């Protein structure tokens, strides 16, 4: 009889069981979404709900394990979801949030290059996004430039300015550099508000322009701004001006992600990490650390510049309020860390988390208080949890899950289907019945707890509990069917 508390020698269908931590996290995530759609307060269906919740969490867990085994799955899933987002969204407002995810994807990718990969802290990045957006606004609104040349000039100026911002990094490190870059973020709105510039940049009231419209060939497809009453009118709301803009931003974000991916995997990318890990050794390898730091800031500012351009395309409105310190400098930094420092996947998750997590939490909690304060509280709480429990961020956790290749999964499934496994099915059936009964007679929370217990309990422990039962049933079955005894499968592979 095998009994492995660690479960590290799982084989066959035993590998269907995810690690307890994964399971709990996924179930929690799912309960969140569940509550969002009405909750599980109805005790009559509570037990059933628990089964469904855990089943969906299990499917999600398996999906994550399989996707992580070959990261191209993640690419495919992410790409698919991004492309289909307007169809998954309920209304234009949500499409707009997805467009902002694209803006912050660009920004956080750039931020990660300088902070994550090169190890140079920058708190002033919001100012770079602001500079870019403001230049575009002023050039188009006051100088009457067409948008595209304005974007090119603005991004160029932002890149140059960002490289200049890198010069303090040559002399300062850590908290001192943080303060120096913070100063830029603090000064930027003041400069915009200066009396001398009010004439051009609109001072406090900012600059507003018409949002871009689809070209004539496409405008029948992307009908103009859908009114709010379109909510949930599926066919009409998907093809709006907002959706058109979203796809432009998505294209930019995809190109930006691809560029950052290649950059970080190149000789340059490795040199950035070398500068971060050991400046002395990087110098000893012949890496010009000063040049690389300035380059990191420059590239990062280029991304911030593009983010500013996307911001303008999306909102077509700038004011100093849009680029306040927290919304554009501190929060993106925080969510970048939560997503995963020095990873591309983490940058994307960070951008997504920034725009969706605080909102969703508030919606679930049905709190109507000032969004700003609570957003800070939620972000702070998340930061503390991640810094202490998961310093590698969400993406780090994903990379660490118990991987499961698609091939092994289908082989195990086929094996399960081909050979009678009465114990397994008896176990599953018993679990479902017990969970439903718990829900019906004790309470919804307990049924969820029971469901969790069944799924996270080490399989081998269950197997050994059921071992005598299994032996009896299999021999019974064998006798009934007159089949020869199947060879004992060896626990050869460490799943």
């Amino acid at each position, binding site marked *: 009889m095998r009994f492995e508390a660690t479960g590290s020698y799982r084989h066959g269908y035993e590998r269907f069981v995810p690690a307890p931590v994964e399971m709990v996290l996924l179930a929690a995530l799912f309960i969140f979404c569940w509550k969002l759609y009405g909750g599980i307060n109805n005790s009559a269906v509570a037990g059933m709900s628990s089964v469904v919740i855990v089943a969906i969490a299990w499917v999600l867990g398996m999906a994550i394990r399989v996707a992580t085994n070959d990261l191209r799955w993640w690419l495919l899933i992410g790409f698919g979801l991004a492309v289909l987002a307007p169809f998954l969204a309920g209304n234009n407002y949500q499409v707009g949030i997805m467009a902002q995810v694209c803006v912050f994807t660009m920004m956080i990718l750039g931020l990660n290059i300088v902070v994550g990969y090169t190890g140079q802290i920058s708190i002033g990045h919001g100012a770079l996004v602001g500079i870019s957006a403001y230049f575009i606004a002023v050039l188009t609104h006051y100088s009457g430039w067409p948008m595209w040349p304005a974007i090119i000039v603005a991004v160029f100026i932002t890149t140059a300015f960002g490289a200049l911002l890198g010069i303090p990094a040559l002399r300062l490190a850590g908290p001192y550099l943080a303060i120096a870059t913070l100063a830029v973020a603090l000064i930027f709105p003041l400069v915009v508000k200066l009396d001398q510039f009010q004439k051009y940049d609109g001072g406090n009231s900012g600059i507003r322009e018409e949002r871009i419209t689809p070209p004539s060939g496409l405008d029948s497809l992307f009908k103009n701004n859908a009114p709010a009453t379109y909510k949930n009118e599926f066919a009409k709301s998907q093809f709006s001006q907002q959706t058109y803009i979203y796809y432009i931003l998505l294209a930019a974000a995809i190109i930006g992600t691809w560029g950052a991916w290649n950059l970080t995997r190149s*000789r340059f990318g*490795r040199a950035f990490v*070398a500068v971060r*890990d050991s400046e*002395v*050794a990087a110098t*000893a390898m*012949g890496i010009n650390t000063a040049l690389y730091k300035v380059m990191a800031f420059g590239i990062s500012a280029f991304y911030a510049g593009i983010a500013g351009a996307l911001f303008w395309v999306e909102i077509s409105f700038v004011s100093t309020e849009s680029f306040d310190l927290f919304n554009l400098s501190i929060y993106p930094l925080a969510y970048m860390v939560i997503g995963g420092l020095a990873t591309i996947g983490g940058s994307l998750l960070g951008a997504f988390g920034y725009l969706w997590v605080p909102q969703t939490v508030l919606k679930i909690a049905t709190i109507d208080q000032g969004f700003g304060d609570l957003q800070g509280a939620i972000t702070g709480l998340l930061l503390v949890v991640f810094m202490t429990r998961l310093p590698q961020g969400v993406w780090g956790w994903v990379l660490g899950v118990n991987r499961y290749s698609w091939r092994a999964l289908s082989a195990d499934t086929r094996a399960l289907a081909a050979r009678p496994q009465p114990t397994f099915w008896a176990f599953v059936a018993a679990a479902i019945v017990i969970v439903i009964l718990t829900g019906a007679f004790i309470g919804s929370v307990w049924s969820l707890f029971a469901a969790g217990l069944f799924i996270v309990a080490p399989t081998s422990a269950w197997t050994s509990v059921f071992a005598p039962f299994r032996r009896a049933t299999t021999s019974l079955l064998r006798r009934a069917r007159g089949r020869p005894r199947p060879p004992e499968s060896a626990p050869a592979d460490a799943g």
Partner: protein
Amino acid sequence: MLEVRGIRAAYGPVVALHDVSITVPDGAIVTILGANGAGKSTTLRTVTGLLKPLAGSVILDGVDIAGKSPDWIVRQRVAHVPEGRQIFATLTVSENLALGAYSRSDERGIAADLKRVFDYFPRLFERRRQIAGTLSGGEQQMLAIGRALMLRPRMLCLDEPSLGLAPLVVRDIFRIIQTINKDDGVGVLLVEQDAKIALSIASYGYVLETGRVVVSEPAEKLVANPTVRRSYLGY
């Protein structure tokens, strides 16, 4: 051949080297001994360009390299294994080695040198996909030396390779340093606290004291030198 001639170097107002002259003949192992703070690391730093000397010159095969930028000096194939190993902790062993060849572009030569490094340090080959920060101290030192070899150096400057290692590992590493030196005649400038083992492989030695060379003799004489015996060998 490397000749350090009368260098003077300072960190701001603190003068660390007053007048240091050292010669490393082609293919020789030369060691610099001295107490903590004597200026041994500083000497290496001026050779490899991390610190610009205030006066004096550093002649590498007839060319004065003093005050040149570190990346230029690296391109002259002067490799530096800095004090405390300084491996790139979050990168894999392979990536660390690839960075050792950062200033080279001859793909084929790099591949050949990678193979050579793995021949010297089979342990690194076994662990080539491991994150370098999780290597043991001895393996990290091997990696630091291997990374320097990826430059195919003509001068190898080693700063305290024995730091924090068990005596057996130290002996292994010094044997490999000796082999590397013999195999392709690379000059080695070795800074070491462990005078005994340093003098066992070096042909010539210098003793630094507060930024000045106080003794310079062939290794076998240095071993017998009474002050060296008392201060650095402990018998």
